[in-house]
């Protein structure tokens, strides 16, 4: 289940594994240590302390995105059948104990709300980091559903194309929506204000805010990355990628108050670091090991340990975002997604043949450095 890197360190140990029936499309942790996972067969499962329960059984259409609300109270799921389902996790009796009578997976009535949005494929959704508002893609629009009044409170027209990605600013003040022509950034305090635009000559396919809410990055279809210090007019443009930029992840801030930005394009990873002088821009180092497409990339929440996973069936932990620290395996048909828990004590990953795996920090490890 795991291999050890060149230096022989064991950073993570395999803790638990199981299988969903198809491609695992998303894995997310709640603040309370619950893990949710979804599959292309339409399953939604919830895991806690090695117990797994079904929220939604395998069906005819896929579930493609999941998100826990910041307070851990709600779980939302969206997918091919155009529905957004929201569960009130706080109404469940925790800890989870698999019990067919209680969970009755054939009935989806244990969901609190189901919003039906035919015929759009819902493939992006995310809860606000500061309140219980849910943003979800709906063709060329994003809708905001508020858990307090249990209503859709606004529809944001991205207009240029279908929504390709969305990201809340960590301070909760803005919502960024990516698509053809760039990124549009709405003010969450006044949804009716015209959005700011980061104008691009191609499509933004992924967008991410740095944890300190200072920078916003966009991975683009024309093999570039655009990084803006939010509010300042001139973005940096980073080139030299072999293909479109499919994944982005920001690290915590370094001592110079700037985080690292990791990006993947086909099988390569570049880690960008900002030079002290703004004029010198950002410089990259390349992390090469994967030999097939990278599907997921995420920094550890409190260190510079970077996790990457791809079609080659390898999940690589890069110490200090530089050297290979450890190589994890367990998805022979390739990994599809990965996510760190909030404390960085556990890592969960999904596989393209339905594998669902959790690793936890090795007791002998001395932190991730």
């Amino acid at each position: 289940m795991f291999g050890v890197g060149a230096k022989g360190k064991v950073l993570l140990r395999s803790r638990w594994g199981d299988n969903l029936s198809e491609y695992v499309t998303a894995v997310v942790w709640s603040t309370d240590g619950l893990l949710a996972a979804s599959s292309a067969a339409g399953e939604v499962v919830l895991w806690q302390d090695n117990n797994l329960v079904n929220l939604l059984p395998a069906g005819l259409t896929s579930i493609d995105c999941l998100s826990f609300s910041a307070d851990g109270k709600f779980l939302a799921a969206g997918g091919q059948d155009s529905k957004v389902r929201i569960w009130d996790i706080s109404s469940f009796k925790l800890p989870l104990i698999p019990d067919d009578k209680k969970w009755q997976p054939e009935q989806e009535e244990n969901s609190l709300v189901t919003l039906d949005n035919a015929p759009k494929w819902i493939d992006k959704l995310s809860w606000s980091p500061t309140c219980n508002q849910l943003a979800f893609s709906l063709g060329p629009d994003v809708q905001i559903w508020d858990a307090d009044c249990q209503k859709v409170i606004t529809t944001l027209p991205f207009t240029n194309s279908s929504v390709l990605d969305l990201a809340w600013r960590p301070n909760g003040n803005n919502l960024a929506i990516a698509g053809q022509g760039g990124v549009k950034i709405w003010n969450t305090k006044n949804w009716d204000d015209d959005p700011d635009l980061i104008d691009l000559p191609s499509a933004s396919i992924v967008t991410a805010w740095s944890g300190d809410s200072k920078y916003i990055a966009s991975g683009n279809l024309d093999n570039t990355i655009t990084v803006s210090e939010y509010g300042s007019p001139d973005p940096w443009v980073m080139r030299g990628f072999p293909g479109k930029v499919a994944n982005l992840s920001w690290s915590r801030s370094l001592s110079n108050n700037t985080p690292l930005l990791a990006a993947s394009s086909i099988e390569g990873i570049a880690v960008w670091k900002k030079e002290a002088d703004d004029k010198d821009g950002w410089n990259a180092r390349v992390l090469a090991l994967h030999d097939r497409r990278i599907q997921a990339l995420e920094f550890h929440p409190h260190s510079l340990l970077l996790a990457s996973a791809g079609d080659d069936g390898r999940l690589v932990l890069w110490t200090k975002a530089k050297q290979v620290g450890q190589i994890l395996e367990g998805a022979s048909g390739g990994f599809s997604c990965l996510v760190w828990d909030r404390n960085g004590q556990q890592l969960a990953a999904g596989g393209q043949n339905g594998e669902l795996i959790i690793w936890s920090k090795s007791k002998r490890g001395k932190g991730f450095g």
Partner: protein
Amino acid sequence: MVATNINTVPVTVITGYLGAGKTTLLNRILTYEHGKKVAVIVNEFGEVGIDNQLVIDADEEIFEMNNGCICCTVRGDLIRIVGNLMKRRNKFDHLVIETTGLADPAPVIQTFFVDEDMREKISLDAVVTVVDAKHIQQHWEADEAQEQIAFADVILLNKTDLVTPEELEKLENKIKAMNGMAKIYRTQNSELGMDALLEVQAFNLDRALEIDPEFLNEVAHEHDETVKSFAIVESGALDGQKLDNWLGKLLQTRGVDIFRMKGILNIAGEDQRFVFQGVHMLFDGKPDRLWKKEENRKNELVFIGRNLDETRLREDFRQCLV
């Protein structure tokens, strides 16, 4: 453009004007007992077999990149939807995409060659165009109608019962002049055998170069259409360097007007045939089988495009001969 992988899903693109019979054709493909599991991406939701869970609605979204370079124009919605669909790879083994009546087929085709994810997972099988034999006359001047015919590998000359045999003959000749590469079938109610529609492999370099000898031998007609196709047949060997220079410059300067081209070339000093194809500025070529001993080594090229200067192209090509 890259040759097909073994594990890729073939995709058939269906084009044609509104009312030509695309939906009828789509429903035939969905209900026919061909043993294939077919996923379908449509633009007008609700008209096709809804009980199939793999009928997906998409809006045609054209993504232009790099200052409007035509070969960088792709269908963004397809990148997204096909990406989602490929997670259910084991649920289907053929993909059919229906375009709207007013669509230019080029961005659909280019999506499968330009985007690296698509290139890895999908192989373009054929562009199938349904032509309404009666009503095409009203649309004849429209760019979309001409492009849909010009880009096709398979053309269904449909609703033949609504026109006279003379009209049909005239129409078929007109279509042949625009696209000498496509296989033309006369149909009613879009009725056509599945083997003529699926697994055609028109974009597979190993299979694609069966150029109709009749078309190659045809004496050039005078046509007043701006979209036309023609063949260059020349014996003799080509200077590889000169050919490279000519083709490079041609694609750069005339790529916008060249819809499709393909050919077999005899390069001086090479014992293998060189085969190639192109869509606008995208070009794909590779050495093919050895020339046979008794074979007459010659060059055969087919161009389909708008406002192409046939005389000039022939002359420039001759300049590449050793």
